Structure formats: structure tokens, C-alpha cells
């Protein structure tokens, strides 16, 4: 069996997945739309930077991905696919409710100034007096944004020795890291205030933000990143025929078949912040989880279908395509049976859920138990 795993996405999350897979000695084909982050040199790794997946065919065990990677096209044959494309951040200007003003910054800009040498940091010492960090400004910030912003606030306080305040609506905490981070911050004199609904007002005298106990005046307002699913998620989901949640992140929300880290299609897995909100530690654990799930698949000598799967009676089928539309796992396709064309269940991809059989208007689909030798099933698929 081919033991190549295709990792899709150029994010840090994908980097961790690649590391985990290489440690398990699988071959990895790493595809990213951008330049890929530095990765360990390894014979098992083929990198496809600045490449886009343009077509996907096949099923678990034998996927074929076509890439458009100028100047040439490439083809990857992979047994499994891990989607780890990460998320994206909206630029500050994307929302008109945030005033465009030199006193309003993104965390990224502040972090750059913080590490720049003093004379070119672009902020006069007088402006460094009171810096406000705002979480949850337009929408509730997720864990990744909260951890990043709070760590930055603490670093700013330590580096510039200025007054720092944090604004929030629902402060995200956890069992250890964030609780101790916020405690350290409070001990160092950083003050937390709960935001009120009003938007910040910025003028030449400073920034003014309403909070539960009054109005806070500061010199700079640093806004926590607003994180979104990547804009190309839908396109990739379409090519892979996997589900997106209503919020645009990858995740199979069908209750009966929702499995953490598994997509709705056999052999396609999800890792990192394209399907969950997590800080770096959480995303790393998720990478290990994805690799462990892939290892179950690739640890087998032969792939085996489920014990019960669907089968189309090709002579009864009227090619209405209902089953192809209703199968939650993209396991039915049209195929030629000798002279006739009819629906056909891809055995390895079928979960045996029965949705197709229940919906076929002419009852052409039955659920059958499998007792055919495994080698025969594999041969039938080649």
C-alpha cells in the first residue's frame, strides 16, 4: 500500500503535522499556497510550495491530487490527506467600526515596534504612557487571539515600563496557563476592565474607551487579532468534498458521524486551526492527534471496508443521483456496469450509514455484509 500522506496548508499547524508524520517514518507530500516554513530535511519529505490543489480524485488509500504549481503541474498519489491550512487574520481596516488612526494598532504592528530598536520604533516616549489592549472589541476573541494579546501586553509592560490596561467582555481562561498569566499581569499592576457596548473614540488627545466602571483614557489602543477561516477553505472543501461548519471552519457537524479530527470522508483528516480555535500548545497536540489517526489507517497492510456497506443494484437504478447527493461521506459515484451507467458505492469509502438506501426512490440500494476476502476487494478497486 502507498504510505504517502498529503499535508495541505502552509501554516505552522501543518509544520507540526509534517514533523509528527516524519517521526513515524511516513512519506509526506507537503503542499502550501505560500512559501512553506522551514522544515526538517528528510528523504521522506517532498515539498510543494506556492502550489494549489486543482483536482482530487480517488478514495481512501489511493487519492490523487493534481496541483497547479507554476511553471509545471504535479500529481501526488497519497493514501491519506491531512488538511492543516490554518486560519487567517483580518486586517484592522477590514471593519469600519475601528477608527483608522495612528493611535490604533494591531498586535502585529505593536509586536514589531516592540522588538525594533528604540530610535526607530516610531513611538515617541510620551506616547508610551498608557497602552490599552482590547480583546473582544467587535466579537469575542478566541483562545489563540487571547493568549497572543495577553502575552504581548505583558511583554510591552516589561519592555517599555509603561502603564498597561486590558479591556475585555468575556475573558477566556483555562486551567493553568491563562489563569496564571492573568494573575501575573494583575500582580504587575496591569488593570483589567470589562468593555461596555460603545466603540472607542480616538482623537488627538488620545483614545477613550467606555468600560463597566467609567471611561479609560490611553495613548495607544492595540486591538486583538480577529481570526477567520481562510478564504480559500470553501474551495478546498469543495475539491475534497468535505464539510464546512456554518462558521466556515472545517468540521463535520453531522451528529451521528462527527468525530474529533476526522472529516466526513474516510482518509481525510483535519489538524489545527482550520477546524478549531487553539493556542500553539493546543494546535501541537492536535497535530499529534491527526498523525495518530492517520497511523491507524496506514498501520494496516490492506484497507478493509466496514462490515456493513451499501450496494447498488445496477439494473434497478434510474440514475436520479439522489444517493450521490445524500451520502454524507462522498462514497457514491456514477460508474459503468458493462453497457449501463448506474450509481456505484466506493466500498472503502462507505461508512455503512444507510442514508443512501433510505433515500433511493426505487429501493435500488441494499446494505450488505462483507465476507469477500480482502485481497479481492482491493483488486476490485484498482
Amino acid at each position, binding site marked *: 500500500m502507498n504510505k504517502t500522506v498529503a499535508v495541505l496548508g502552509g501554516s505552522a499547524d501543518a509544520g507540526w503535522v509534517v514533523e*509528527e508524520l516524519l*517521526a*513515524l517514518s511516513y512519506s509526506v507530500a507537503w503542499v502550501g499556497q505560500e512559501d512553506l516554513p522551514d522544515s526538517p530535511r528528510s528523504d521522506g519529505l517532498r515539498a510543494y510550495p506556492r502550489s494549489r490543489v486543482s483536482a482530487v480524485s480517488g478514495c481512501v488509500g489511493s487519492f490523487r491530487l493534481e496541483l497547479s504549481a507554476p511553471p509545471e503541474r504535479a500529481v501526488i498519489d497519497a493514501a491519506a490527506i491531512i488538511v492543516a491550512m490554518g486560519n487567517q487574520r483580518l486586517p484592522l481596516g477590514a471593519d469600519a467600526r475601528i477608527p483608522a488612526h495612528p493611535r490604533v494598532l494591531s498586535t502585529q504592528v505593536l509586536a514589531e515596534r516592540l522588538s525594533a530598536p528604540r530610535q526607530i520604533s516610531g513611538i515617541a516616549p510620551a506616547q508610551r504612557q498608557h497602552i490599552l489592549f482590547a480583546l473582544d472589541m467587535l*466579537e*469575542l476573541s*478566541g*483562545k489563540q487571539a*487571547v493568549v497572543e494579546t495577553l502575552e504581548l501586553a505583558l511583554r510591552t509592560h516589561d519592555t517599555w515600563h509603561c502603564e498597561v490596561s486590558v479591556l*475585555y*467582555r*468575556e*475573558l*477566556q*481562561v*483555562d*486551567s*493553568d496557563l*491563562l*489563569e*496564571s498569566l492573568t*494573575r501575573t499581569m494583575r500582580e504587575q499592576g496591569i488593570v483589567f476592565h*470589562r468593555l461596555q457596548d460603545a466603540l472607542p473614540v480616538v482623537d488627538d488627545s488620545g483614545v477613550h474607551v467606555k468600560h*463597566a466602571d467609567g471611561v479609560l483614557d490611553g495613548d495607544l489602543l492595540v486591538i486583538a487579532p480577529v481570526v477567520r477561516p481562510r478564504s480559500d477553505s470553501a474551495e478546498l472543501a469543495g475539491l475534497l468534498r468535505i464539510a464546512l*461548519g*456554518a*462558521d466556515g*471552519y472545517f*468540521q463535520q*457537524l453531522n*451528529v*451521528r458521524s*462527527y*468525530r*474529533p*479530527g476526522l472529516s466526513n470522508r474516510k482518509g481525510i483528516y483535519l489538524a489545527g486551526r482550520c477546524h*478549531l*480555535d*487553539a493556542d500553539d*500548545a493546543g494546535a*501541537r*497536540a*492536535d497535530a*499529534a*492527534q491527526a*498523525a*495518530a*489517526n492517520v*497511523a*491507524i489507517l496506514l*498501520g494496516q497492510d490492506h484497507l478493509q471496508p466496514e462490515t456493513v456497506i451499501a450496494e447498488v443494484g445496477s439494473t434497478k437504478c434510474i440514475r436520479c443521483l439522489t444517493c450521490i447527493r445524500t451520502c454524507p461521506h462522498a462514497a457514491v459515484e456514477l460508474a459503468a456496469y458493462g453497457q449501463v451507467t448506474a450509481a456505484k458505492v466506493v466500498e472503502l469509502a462507505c461508512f455503512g450509514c444507510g442514508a443512501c438506501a433510505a433515500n433511493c426512490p426505487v429501493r435500488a440500494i441494499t446494505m450488505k455484509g462483507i465476507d469477500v476476502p480482502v485481497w479481492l476487494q482491493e483488486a476490485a478497486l484498482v
Partner: protein
Amino acid sequence: MPNTSVVIIGGGISGVAAALNLAQRGVAVDLVEREPRLGGNTLDVCCKAVNGQCQHCGGCLVAERLRAVCAEPLVTVHLSSTITNIQPAGDTFSYQLVTANVKQAKSARAVIAATGFDHIDARTKGPYGYGALSMVITGEDMERRLRAEGQSVYDCAVLRDVAFIQCVGSRDEHANRGWCSQVCCRYAVRLARLLGARSPQTNITIFKMDIQTAGRDSQAFALAQQEGIRFICGLPAVVRRSEKDSAKAALLFDDINTGQFRTNEFDLVVLATGIEPRSDALQLAETLGVERNRFGFLASQDGAALSIPGIFAAGCCQSPRSISESIVHATAAAEACYRYLQEHTQ
């Protein structure tokens, strides 16, 4: 990977998920559970579907895995059992498996602790009157009853006003209980929506510090607000029996909008209790020789690895988590364990 075996202590969802992953990759597993059944605390989690619409609480991720683990030939389940005397012996660990006072000497190449958590005892929060006032219950009680008796148990016309109080026994630095239990906001918001949908005449108020929505969970909170569930910042100081109506509870709280203390009356008060380290976590840590963090959860530097090589932690014994997060963490622990086995087996 033949001739290797791993012992997993605890057969809750975390132990089961770790066992499944290792077994499916060819590692033999002894799964040791103290109770006479698998599943741990997840057996009390109820379905929170509102009018048949799933709220993604994670409750139904369990049954299928319990079935799968029992059918897995490489997993040997030891019920009503526990282990003692763990000793590192070269590259392996020797231990005693104790089943109903019968001791058996065994060995394993690696150990995964998946011993889970204890429910926080709401009586530790004396001013809320749990145990003394019949209309004060815990989230644990509510989940259990809904699970055992069905979604209609709280449908009754006399429930006009229901309050949830968040963070009972969690996030309290003064009592050295500074951790957030992570699950109680999620289950409380979902239970509140369920109550609200079943009994539209019921007014629901949630007293909270910060609703935890991280991890793609802001939707349930937003829906709850739209549906008219009232969220009040700040936890009540005390819960007393009402002087006007002895069937009701009176909550005294600081209203941040007016800056004054106010009293509201409720027919039912649900204390959102969470997750604390097991009462015997210290004993377990000592048996294994591993460290705990300042709150008593098993301490791990790197995801799942504990302070002794070859010993790992999965799920709520390491930190509070939901069911799906426990599955993810346990799978990552299985991965770390597998990598360790690869490095330590020729």
C-alpha cells in the same frame, strides 16, 4: 509492534480513546478500570438536543467508542480493578493488577494515566446552601436526572424563574482553586437553552464571571442571548430560603449596573459545578512517581508526557476538558506513547 504492552489506568473516555488508538496500531493494551463498568463520568452526561436539534455537547461521542473498545482483540479490559506497586525495571514497568483482592504480577512497556476527575462538591461553597435548600441543585444533578429520566423531567409550570450560578468551586484563587473547569459554561448554556425551549414560560438567568466560548463555542452563547436568557456579570454572595415563599430561593447579588445589592427570587437554582483532581490523585502520583501541578492535576511539560519517561497522562487527570477535547488529548497521548515505544524497542 509485537510483544509490547501498555497499561492504561482508568477506563473513562480518555482511557478508552487512548486504548483504541494504540490497539489499532498493533500495541496490546491492558485497560484497568476501578468501577464495574467503562465510561467514567461521561455516563452522567445527558443529551442536550433542543427540539431534536443537536447542540454539539459531545455526549454521544462515547457509546460507540465503548462498544469498539470491547470488540478490540488487542485490548484486555479489567473491570473492578486497579494497579499498585508500579516499579520501573529497565525499559519496562512492573506492577500488580488487583482485581477483587486477587493480585497478579504484570509488566508493561509504558503507562498511561487516564484517571479523570472528581465532581466538585457544591457544599464547599457553603453560602449557596447546597444540601440544605431543596431548590438548589448542581449541574451534575441536573445532567444525571435528564439522562436517567428523559428530557421532560424539568417541564413543569411552576418553574417560572431559574438561575444558574457559574464557577461554583472553580476560579477561586483565595481557596487555591484558581483553575477554570472549562466545561461548566458550555453545559450550563446548553442546559439553559434546553430548559428555555421546553418551557417557554420560564425566565432564565445565568450569573457568571466570563462565559468561556473559546474553541468555536461562541454560537451557543450567542443563541442563548438571542433567546432571551439573561446573563448577569458577577456571582451572587448568598442563596437563602425566601421569606415570602419558602419554596423559593432568594439570591443576593451585586448589580453592577446600579452598584447596589439586589435580591431576586428563583424556583430553581443550578450550581454549575466543575472538575477537580481526584481525591486519590496524590496517591496515584506517588505510586507513579510523577509530579502534580499546583492544583493537583498531573503535571506535564509537553502535551502528555509526565515527569518520568514512559509515563503519560490523558484527559481530565491532566487538566479539565470536554469529551471531545479529552478524545483529542488521549489520542495525542497515545501518539506520544507510541513514539516512545518505537524509540525504546528494537
